[in-house]
């Protein structure tokens, strides 16, 4: 590739693919999609005797499995190198960083402690397993609720789920791995490599950080020589990315919490649209065309199978539809300013009927309001408009549904300004 350097899917150097987090019906079950890479995380707990050397601490156990459906190369017994490497990295990231308070998992010192087990399954491999896996692990851990326990003297009472509400784990911070792929002996760098990019990369640098900009783990593989300022630059980029991803995770968790509290429907069944047989939807690839305006419009036009599935509506009965998890975006106020003129009226009427059911704080007038009201699904959509030529560290974390359309239109406006300047 002489001359211009472009990524196959049209992303920029520091762009992440779309991250989508959905929760299952159980606590502690989540699916994280990073582009087409999919990881399923499940947390479970059990009362066991503690380790002798650590009598007052709970036990954490992490396990990442590469399912055979993830890639044709994954066969049982053939993937040991990659598996060991990923598991080791994940353990260092989550266990050594002490993100979970293991002391709080102790029930009776020396006798009974909680053993928390995190199982991660890779369902599809399209690059950057470690990032997706670390996000899935931390999201599942934050989402998980363990049964409540009370100790009275020598009696330990383990309350069933019906008796007392389960208790969340005590999590200090959320470490997230960010991968950097290097090409040509460190000359070129890409964030979030896809599978094809991973195959041709020279080396990989993984930095695990939390939003307080504390590095939890850093690992460089591939034997490339990196300069000091390269590593520092990567850590700065990682700081930015982690902040965004952490926000996304918080919003997803918050949404799910709210849905469960309000008694709405939750779980995987709700996040998959009815009457659609799609294992994969085509993400809006920002196909780069020669005209910048075209680029933005194409992002709008190149939509998922049913274009309304961009917001993934679930039709319950005629006239009643639900988008995502059945909750309303708490960004109703913020969205007022992001006016899009493509809030189709049909979608508004659908949303209206759902609004009757859910509490409606922000979105005031119903009929005739053509401000796009997005019932976002589990993860909140955060759009950061890429200003061409400016800070390349911003990213489009999630381009989904209306907001994707809206922001693209905004991008058009902004981009139109640039050439005129």
């Amino acid at each position, binding site marked *: *590739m002489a001359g211009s350097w*472009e990524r*196959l899917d*049209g992303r920029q150097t520091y762009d992440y693919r779309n991250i989508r987090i959905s929760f299952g019906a159980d606590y502690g079950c989540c699916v994280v999609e990073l582009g087409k890479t999919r990881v399923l995380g499940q947390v479970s707990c059990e009362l066991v005797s503690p380790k002798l050397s650590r009598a007052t601490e709970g036990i954490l156990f992490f396990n990442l499995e590469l399912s055979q459906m993830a890639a044709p190369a994954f066969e049982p017994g053939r993937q040991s190198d990659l598996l060991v490497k990923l598991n080791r990295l994940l353990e260092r990231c989550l266990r050594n960083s002490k993100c979970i308070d293991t002391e709080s998992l102790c029930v009776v010192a020396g006798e009974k402690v909680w053993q928390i087990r995190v199982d991660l399954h890779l369902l599809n491999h399209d690059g950057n397993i470690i990032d997706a896996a670390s996000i899935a692990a931390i999201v599942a851990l934050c989402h998980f609720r363990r049964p409540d326990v009370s100790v009275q003297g020598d009696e330990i009472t383990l309350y069933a789920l019906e008796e007392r509400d389960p208790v969340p784990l005590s999590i200090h911070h959320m470490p997230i791995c960010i991968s950097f792929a290097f090409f040509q002996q460190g000359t070129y760098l890409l964030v979030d490599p896809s599978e094809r990019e991973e195959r041709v990369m020279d080396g990989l640098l993984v930095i695990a950080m939390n939003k307080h900009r504390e590095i939890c783990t850093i690992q460089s593989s591939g034997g490339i020589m990196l300069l000091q300022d390269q590593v520092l630059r990567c850590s700065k980029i990682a700081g930015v990315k982690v902040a965004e991803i952490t926000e996304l995770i918080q919003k997803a968790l918050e949404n799910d919490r709210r849905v469960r509290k309000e008694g709405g429907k939750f779980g995987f069944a709700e996040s998959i649209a009815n009457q659609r047989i799609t294992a994969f939807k*085509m993400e809006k*690839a920002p*196909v780069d*065309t020669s005209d910048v305006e*075209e680029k933005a419009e194409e992002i709008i036009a*190149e939509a998922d199978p049913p274009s309304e599935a961009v917001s993934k509506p679930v039709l319950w009965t005629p006239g009643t539809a639900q988008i995502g998890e059945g909750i309303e975006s708490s960004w109703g106020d913020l969205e007022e300013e992001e006016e899009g003129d493509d809030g189709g009226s049909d979608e508004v009427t659908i949303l209206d009927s759902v609004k009757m059911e859910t509490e409606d704080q922000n979105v005031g007038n119903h009929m005739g309001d053509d401000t796009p009201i997005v019932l976002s699904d589990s993860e909140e959509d955060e759009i950061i408009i890429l200003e061409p030529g400016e800070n390349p560290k911003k990213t489009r974390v999630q381009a989904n549904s209306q907001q994707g359309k809206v922001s693209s239109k905004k991008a058009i406006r902004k981009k139109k300004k640039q050439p005129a300047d």
Partner: protein
Amino acid sequence: WAEAGQRGGARVVLPGEELLLPESAGPNAEGSAEQMLRLGSIVRPRARVVCGPGLRRCGDRLLVTKCGRLRHKEPGGGGGGGVYWVDSQQKRYVPVKGDHVIGIVTAKSGDLFKVDVGGSEPASLSYLAFEGATKRNRPNVQVGDLIYGQFVVANKDMEPEMVCIDSNGRANGMGVIGQDGLLFKVTLGLIRKLLAPECEIIQEIGKLYPLEIVFGMNGRIWVKARTIQQTLILANVLEACEHMTTEQRKQIFSRLSES
């Protein structure tokens, strides 16, 4: 497997079903609309029926082995009772004799090339299976090259063998695919759709940019346009054609042709 000539049937079949076909005229008709298709028994007046992918003959019955829609093509001229097959979708390719595929040369051992075609085993390609190749005049094939060829042997018991010449000894477009360009994977159903005669997508693409494109029945497409950007656009558009409706596709093409 062309869509043209198919009877408008949206009959969905599942693996394990026995095939019941409308019997036009048979001794056991009795006004029954469908009757088990019996092969080789009483149906001498009926012509030979070809069963295509997804169907398997089991004794004297036809069993369905894939899930999908049952398709039928009327016999062209003269004999034959038409072709039946099951239109199914999958991404994993299974080598079939006669298929033209794109392979990647993975190894070169003596006078044999090992070519990865996406199946369970790499196919073997002899160096003599190129047009104009002799023992002295070897073809210029390196490891990592893309090859467009067809299978001469492809069954489930042996490793497949492919060649880059047809039965007359001519290349006919097969052989080593040139430099540059981009190879990407799509589902098998999309390839069949694109290779159907009168495919609109191909015609529209042809109007967009000058390009070279090679379709392999193993789900691989190689595309090359003048600039890298155009190549990437084409690759992304073809991948997206899987999921787009006709209107969306027309929109995109009209936008691209404007720019």
